[in-house]
């Protein structure tokens, strides 16, 4: 056992997978520069020493290097792509959606694209072009899988599962949860460290996890909001409100097997999402739950999310933009009253 943050556990997971399978490689900007940073968030720090031929440091050319990764995947390699900031995915989305996601289907199952994309998201004082929560754009793309990791254990286990999966997998990571140290530390960061076993483990790509049991309300969230939901649940417990907190984790597909029974039990659902309320992942979860478990709902499903605005720079505004545990707790109280 050792205590690790997400950046470290991802780094170990990548190294172990590269050790295990010579077709695994990393590709991205600034990921393999001696004297550099190991990507924008230290995840690949030092890996260029251990795997000099398999750490592909690219030009600033997102459309291109995603295409390169997909091409390599078609030829049997297993690339792990780092996009620095999720917002830059818009530049690469043609390759992701039109090629990675569709090629297997349009070839009638003749080819496959074992691709892993690591996407740092979240509002962190950098202004509106380094801040978006990108999950929403990829859950509705058949052919992709999408997961969100909120602690170091999951990060390691999910990255390993993703590398071994034969399909394109998007892993969403939150900048405030990496636990990166030194120059790359983030102000406002939240502790997402875990005890990491020495022995090998994986975490499935399609499973939600109940973080806290409760009977009054089901709070669904992921990434940073999974932490804020736990904080809120603790506060609510003080008022004798017993919230069940589920880290949705698997955003595509949604794990209704885990979520469903909780909804049946509590009859009340709050979904918490960082990012504008309209058109988010919460909408899909709400609609999906309504279709499947509508009869158990004792009140409409509530979404707690950011307002429908771009991400502002000023910390005052950014804090108002991002849902926090106070807002979550208030929403739960409102729903139950």
């Amino acid at each position, binding site marked *: 056992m050792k205590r690790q943050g997400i950046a470290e556990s991802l780094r170990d997971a990548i190294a172990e997978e590269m050790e295990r399978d010579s077709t695994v490689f990393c590709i991205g900007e600034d990921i393999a520069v001696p004297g550099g940073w190991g990507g924008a968030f230290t995840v690949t720090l030092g890996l260029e020493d251990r795997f000099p*031929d398999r750490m592909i440091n690219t*030009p600033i050319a997102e*459309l*291109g290097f995603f295409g390169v990764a*997909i091409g*390599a995947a078609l030829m049997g390699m297993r690339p792990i792509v780092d996009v620095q900031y999720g917002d830059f995915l818009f530049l690469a989305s043609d390759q992701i959606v*039109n090629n990675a996601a569709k090629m297997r289907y349009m*070839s009638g199952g*003749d080819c496959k694209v074992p691709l892993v994309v690591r996407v740092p998201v979240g509002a962190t004082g950098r202004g509106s072009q380094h801040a978006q929560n990108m999950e929403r754009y990829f859950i509705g793309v058949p052919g992709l899988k999408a997961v969100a990791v909120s602690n170091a254990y999951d990060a390691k286990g999910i990255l390993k599962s993703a590398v071994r999966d034969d399909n394109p997998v998007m892993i969403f990571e939150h900048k405030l949860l990496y636990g990166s140290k030194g120059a790359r530390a983030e102000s406002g960061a939240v502790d997402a460290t875990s005890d990491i076993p020495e022995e090998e483990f994986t975490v499935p790509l399609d499973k939600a996890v109940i973080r806290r049991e409760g009977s009054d309300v089901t709070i669904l969230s992921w990434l940073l909001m999974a932490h804020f939901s736990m904080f809120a649940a603790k506060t609510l417990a003080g008022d004798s409100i017993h919230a069940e907190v589920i880290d949705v984790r698997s955003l595509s597909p949604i794990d209704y097997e885990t979520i469903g029974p909780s909804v049946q039990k509590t009859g009340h659902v709050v979904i918490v999402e960082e990012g504008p309320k309209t058109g988010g992942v919460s909408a899909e979860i709400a609609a999906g739950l309504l279709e499947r478990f509508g009869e158990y709902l004792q009140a409409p499903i509530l979404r707690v999310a950011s307002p429908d605005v771009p991400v502002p720079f000023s910390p005052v505004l950014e804090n108002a933009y991002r849902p926090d545990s106070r807002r979550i707790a208030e929403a739960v109280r409102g729903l139950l009253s």
Partner: protein
Amino acid sequence: MSAQSPGSREPQLANYDRDFLLKLYAQILLIRRFEEQVKFLFLEGTMPGTIHQCHGQEATAVGVCTALNKDDFITSTFRGHGHALAKGLTPREMLDELFGAATGCCKGKGGSMHMGNMEKGMIPGIAIVAGGIPLAAGMALAFKMRKTSQVVACFFGDGAVAEGAFHEGLNMAAIWNLPVLFVCENNLYGASTRIDKVMKNIKISDRAAGYGFRGETVDGNDLLAVYEAARRAVGECRAGHGPVLLELLTYRRTGHSRRDACHYQSRDERDAWFSNDPIERFVQTLLTRSDIAQIDLDRVEAQVDHEVSDAVQQARRAPQPATNDLLRDVYA
């Protein structure tokens, strides 16, 4: 196979093996006949979808693919029938695909723009202009990392040169010395828009220098010239001196897609290019050989016609997918 002396740039017809030449003829003709049939079937209304055809550009596909090994790969575009046939896909699996049949090379899920066959060294066609260029670089990167000697030939049109994907893909291939042959089929038009409206320097092979590798412009309607240029380039790529950019000057004898009457092309231009047909030219070349006579060509032609009409007959009866095939093949 040919025994062309390296360094020489003029096709030396005498150095070629007769069978090799007749095989080239069969291939170039197969593409023409295939496309003619497809056009007919489409206009007749029996064939669904939309089509982008390559009448007039047959020499580029055959010349390049003949320089490749079976385990080399190509990437193609919305205009991929010729490339596919030249890389060894059968008229049968392609026509079935065009008819949306379960027996098509993509089980009817791909259609005209996405034909491919991994076994035969062709990934599904990419219909996003220039979208296959970064893929090709990545495929070549895989070959290089795995230390195989395979190469990739990446087909695209003059229109693709303006896309960011062209720029990013060529640059990465260059800095990593990847074994990829970029094949620009310059037919002077991107859809209805003429090349001189979208770039100031229309000598596309010159672009390679900006990225730091070799480019060459070749008469794309001269089958042997294309073949020899491709063979040299493939050799360079296999030796680790890639990439190479080949610009092949050609012209499409048909509409951009479907029922396009090409009113945006001038009469003079069309006339000039129509009298510069790659197949007619190759026939003239072949007939200068003492060991090839019209009757040999007729024999090839009969075989080709038979193969195509056979495939058409089969395709008309090919089984359509079942409705629940809809949900298959999304994930591996």
